[in-house]
């Protein structure tokens, strides 16, 4: 390592300063101000008196808000676990087979990423057509192959609504973790793979003992981004099920619940910045604690240089 001189310090400071200033000014300060809203009562949309933790009490234990909060949180956790398996599992597998550079891999690599580029508005609307109980291709396909009883209103019933939206989300975003894994796998030196192959390692062994440990940094990135993304999940359920978490809260997640509480739903709910900000603070705490703990744990798993 370098000597700890002034030049080095200035160099590091110069590297960090622009990012620090921008993030502080336009992310941290506004968010901190928004957090303060949580400690006030609100006269309509105007801030009124300091009321301490009352909004937190309402959001956690007041009824029906508490039930809504924990219902949403539970759904967020379901979203995270499912995306880890469905989206990131598939992504890992695809990255691994793309790495083999079989004929046509460039095509597949582009194909898997195209959905990522599309706007959520379009992806959500299009999959709503596919899942439409009346003329949707999914149900028509099931009926065509004789599985009438499997045909159902995917987005209309509590048992299947969230799962359907998770699937669509995985479809939309799978290309991104795939790319991350692919980039991670590319970092692995050929010698290491060669050596393993010469030792007679098959695909499974190679994956388990060589690739998996060596893509640990990429895995850290994927896990943390998926966790934060799942906890802040908003766009896909908003486009596909609406701001209210239709049906009856089955697709409600903290992001929707927060947005609905802060800005109302034009056709049903009112705006309450106090409760909304309390929710936001709680969301932040959950995400921050878990991510910090996790980043450290996952980074320990990464190989030392």
């Amino acid at each position, binding site marked *: 390592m370098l000597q700890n001189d002034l030049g080095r310090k200035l160099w590091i400071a110069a590297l960090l300063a622009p990012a620090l200033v921008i993030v502080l000014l336009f992310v941290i300060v506004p968010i901190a101000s928004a957090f303060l809203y949580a400690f006030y009562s609100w006269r309509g949309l105007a801030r009124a008196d300091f009321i301490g933790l009352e909004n937190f009490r309402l959001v956690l234990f007041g009824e029906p808000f508490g039930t809504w909060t924990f219902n949403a949180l539970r759904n967020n956790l379901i979203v995270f676990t499912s995306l880890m398996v469905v989206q990131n599992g598939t992504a890992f597998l695809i990255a691994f087979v793309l790495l083999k550079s079989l004929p046509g891999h460039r095509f*597949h690599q582009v*194909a898997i990423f195209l959905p990522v580029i599309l706007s959520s508005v379009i992806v959500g609307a299009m999959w709503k057509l596919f899942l439409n109980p009346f003329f949707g*291709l999914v149900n028509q396909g099931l009926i065509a192959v004789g599985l009438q009883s499997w045909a159902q209103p995917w987005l209309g019933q509590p048992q299947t609504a969230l799962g359907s939206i998770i699937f669509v989300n995985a479809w939309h975003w799978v290309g991104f973790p795939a790319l991350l894994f692919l980039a991670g796998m590319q970092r692995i030196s050929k010698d290491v793979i060669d050596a393993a192959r010469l030792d007679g390692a098959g695909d499974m062994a190679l994956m388990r003992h060589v690739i998996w440990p060596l893509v640990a940094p990429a895995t850290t990135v994927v896990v943390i981004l998926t966790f934060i993304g799942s906890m802040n999940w908003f766009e896909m359920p908003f486009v596909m099920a609406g701001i209210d978490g239709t049906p009856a809260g089955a697709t409600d997640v903290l992001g929707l619940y927060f947005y609905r509480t802060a800005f109302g739903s034009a056709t049903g709910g009112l705006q309450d910045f106090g409760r*909304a900000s309390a929710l*936001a603070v709680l969301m932040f705490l959950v995400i921050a604690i878990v991510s910090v703990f996790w980043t450290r744990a996952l980074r320990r798993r*990464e190989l030392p240089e």
Partner: protein
Amino acid sequence: MSAAIPDGRPVAADGPIKVWMIQAFLIFNSILMLYPIVIVVLSGFKSTAEIYSTPFSLPASFEPKNLVTIWEQTRFPRYLLNSLIVTVSSVTTILVVGTLAAYALARYRFRGNELIYLFFLSGLMVPLKLAIIPLFIQLTSLGLIDTQLGLILVYTAMGLPSAIFILTGFLRTLPFELEESARIDGASEGRIMWSIMLPLARPAMVIAGIHNAVPIWNDFFFPLVMVQTDRLKTLPQGLTIFMGEYNTEWGVLFAGLTLAALPITIVYMALSRQFISGLTHGAVK
């Protein structure tokens, strides 16, 4: 046929059955990915009624009537240009500023490293939508409401945490030997960063760039709240005029948003070379 490691040199041969199975899996996956996109493109030629009566068949005609509607009712070229200005400026700033910060965090040990890393990470944990009111007030006081610069700064601030997170993760994995030997040869810190380390970080920069470019390109929330001057509107924001209270013109939106995805698609196709070719050039040792 044989499995090849990145430079095409066969190492261990996969049996033909296995290769076919892998190919079948990839082809199935690509169909699953592409078929809905084909439907989206076809829907761009349909009216809303047609989308709902025959969602999965060919459109009655391939006349670009939805595009004509967009052309007549919005300032499409202007919006497109604005989107390009905002996205390119934001992503460039994110990558430049973010790479510098990530480099510092990944390659140097110093007091507060972990703390600054967590500071950036915390910017990732709450959606900025949440703070739209304080943000709006702050931008108003800076005179940046209803300006492109305001949008660019917001997007940059929003994108930096994830970019720094991704880039730090990757820069950390680069071996220290290269750097050390360059230092022994007397290269300056700036030179080591610029000519040795950053070229190796290209795939990660592409990932961080795309990770930010796509949401920024597609976002209509921030422009909707922050920009009211028609001349300054972005493309997704401009297209929201087709979302009515009781009826959304889906055909028009499908056409417009698919068209809007084209520039990013082209950029990605160009950049996707970074990956597989990055294998041979980027792999260390």
